[in-house]
């Protein structure tokens, strides 16, 4: 997983691009096809069958339902894309195949900050909770990196994961402790905690700038991640300042996962599963993995949300639960096919 072969191409991105023209094309096509399917499914599926023509029937209930589903699809796309992109970055950054925002304490940090805002600051509106979750995720990331960096060999992948797990454990019990003492906060938090996709364009608008900046920073980091995949020594040999590179991509991850988590609550598996699936389809180059992870994450989340609307009528199953239901079998399938590509 670290230094693979001295024969690795000096510029993996260019090599990958060459490969795309050949056998990687079907993989790209498949992911984009699934994305399109997800958009259609997310707009058509729901507790009630609504013909797509209702969209032109202004003022009808069908029209209201379709509008609602389109907003939900947009939010699912934004959240899923951000989580998968953040997950792919983290996996590259830490060179740990299990890395995702949940494992490194970001979700726990966001959740803790939300609870503190709910209970002690008296925040109830989503716009203030967004900030809380975002700040919590950022502080958790800094703390985890700070703890992991203690010692001579710096923030190694293993130390990052250990620090993340330790911080998650501590923050989770503090969160539970506060909630046990405050029931009103618990009611609001419970709903947020399972991950629910709303249908408010305003919520999305508040988050969009953060997501956009995070996505641009992450995508610009593709070459950095490709270089890091060769190992720090080789990356330095290629002229990369690995410490600074890590900070830039790290900030992108905090922006992406913190904002996505704030928007719908912690959603598991998307950040973990999607990058692996994408890698299995198009190979390890981050120039391809990062943008296609956005598409894959958007598709998985939208499909999970759509299925959540129809599996247990008359109720809806929250997306945080459905991504696990849909994501885990997909993950196992990839593992069994033995196509889990290296990082």
């Amino acid at each position, binding site marked *: 997983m670290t230094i693979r072969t001295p024969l690795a191409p000096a510029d993996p991105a260019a090599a990958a691009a060459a490969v795309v023209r050949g056998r990687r094309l079907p993989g790209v096509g498949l992911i984009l096809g699934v994305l399109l399917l997800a958009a259609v499914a997310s707009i058509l599926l729901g*507790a009630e069958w609504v013909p797509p023509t209702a969209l032109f029937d202004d003022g009808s*209930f069908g029209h209201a*339902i379709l509008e609602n589903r389109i907003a939900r699809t947009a939010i699912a796309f934004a959240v899923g894309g951000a989580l998968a992109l953040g997950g792919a970055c983290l996996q590259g950054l830490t060179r740990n195949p299990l890395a995702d925002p949940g494992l490194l304490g970001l979700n726990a940090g966001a959740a803790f900050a939300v609870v503190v805002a709910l209970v002690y600051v008296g925040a*109830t509106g989503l716009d203030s909770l967004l900030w809380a979750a975002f700040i919590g995720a950022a502080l958790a990331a800094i703390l985890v990196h700070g703890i992991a960096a203690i010692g001579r060999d710096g923030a190694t992948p293993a130390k990052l994961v250990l620090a993340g797990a330790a911080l998650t454990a501590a923050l989770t019990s503090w969160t539970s402790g506060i909630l046990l003492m405050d029931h009103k906060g618990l009611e*609001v938090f419970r*709903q*947020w905690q399972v991950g*629910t*996709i709303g249908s*408010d364009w305003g919520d999305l608008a508040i988050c969009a700038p953060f997501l956009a900046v995070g996505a641009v920073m992450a995508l610009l980091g593709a070459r950095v991640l490709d270089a890091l995949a060769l190992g720090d020594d080789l990356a330095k040999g290629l002229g990369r300042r690995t410490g600074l590179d890590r900070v830039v991509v790290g900030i992108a991850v905090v922006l992406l996962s913190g904002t996505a988590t704030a928007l719908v609550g912690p959603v598991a598996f998307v950040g973990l599963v999607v990058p692996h699936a994408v890698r299995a389809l198009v190979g390890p180059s981050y120039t391809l993995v990062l943008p296609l992870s956005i598409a894959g994450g958007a598709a998985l989340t939208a499909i999970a949300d759509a299925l959540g609307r129809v599996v247990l009528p008359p109720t809806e199953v929250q997306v945080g639960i459905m991504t696990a239901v849909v994501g885990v079998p997909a993950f196992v399938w990839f593992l069994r096919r033995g196509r889990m590509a290296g990082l």
Partner: protein
Amino acid sequence: MIRRSVLIAASLVLAATGLAACSTGATDSADSSADSASKADKGAFPVTVEHAYGSTEITEEPTDVATIGWSDHDVALSLGVVPVAAQAITWGGNDQQSTDWFDAELKKVGGKQPVRYNADTSIPFTEISKAAPDLILATNSGITEADYKKLSEIAPTVAFPGDPWLTSWQDSLEMIGKATGRVTLSEEVKKETEDKIAQAQKDHPQIVGASYLVTGVQDNSKLGTIGLYGAGDARPQMLTQLGMELAPVADKLVPAGQFYTDVSAEKAPELESEVLINLGYTAGSFEALQKDKLLSQIPAIKSGHYLDVTDQPLSLTFSAASTLSIPYFIDELVPSIAEAVDGGKVNVTAAE
């Protein structure tokens, strides 16, 4: 609520203890058993009370009663039994972890505020045993069989008769009346409560026969689903006793054996009823319901026949209806329900 003789007895005790009983926890001089010692029926003991986990024999009149559950302390107090320890009311309670109706009655009978313990997530066995009760009442609670066995080691315990948390006030009253030897008094209290309900029907004839639904908004920012209460739940049970009729769609959507379900907002037009009573978590839920593109299509919201209750204590008056809370429910909430039936969009928010 309480017989005149009880009040007289209580005031005598109050006088005897130099009013110390009024101030909570100031002194120990108001022995809670003193004011209720003579209300038991002659020859009431020993008595056996049947419940979901078997039968419990109580050999002599209990003096130190501990309660667990939503309404057991209310029912006991309405029979003049001041619990020595009771479950803390964390949702909808006041600063004393009690309710205003309990405190008002406590003042009337002149007792000491019970020791309050939090039994929301688990049964606080240590604290209950510290109170050294000689009877534990849990007729409207969710105790498990294992809890029941442990509690029985502390004192004779009376569990719920059928399903956890779904005991009617009448069943609670009957069981607690029997367990404390106050069958005659419990029948009188029952009659008074029923009279109060009958009077409410006379005062607000429009509610009789009106079809209703009770919903709960989960969160005012994400209205993908709306909670719907079924016939088994305490809230619809109380409204049905009031003479209202649960709309048939509730039976259709809430699965058998469940008292609550989340309904997709896309089903809003199906939630047909004459009046909708929503229990909102925050004051903003009222506006959120009206503004939401889907939920505003619920027929009763569309026609403007709805009531939004975000005041937790008021919500509790019929979520955990008891012989003490029902008069509050009727005085404070029923007029608003009647107004909603007439077509007013009523918003009952917290007083603070």
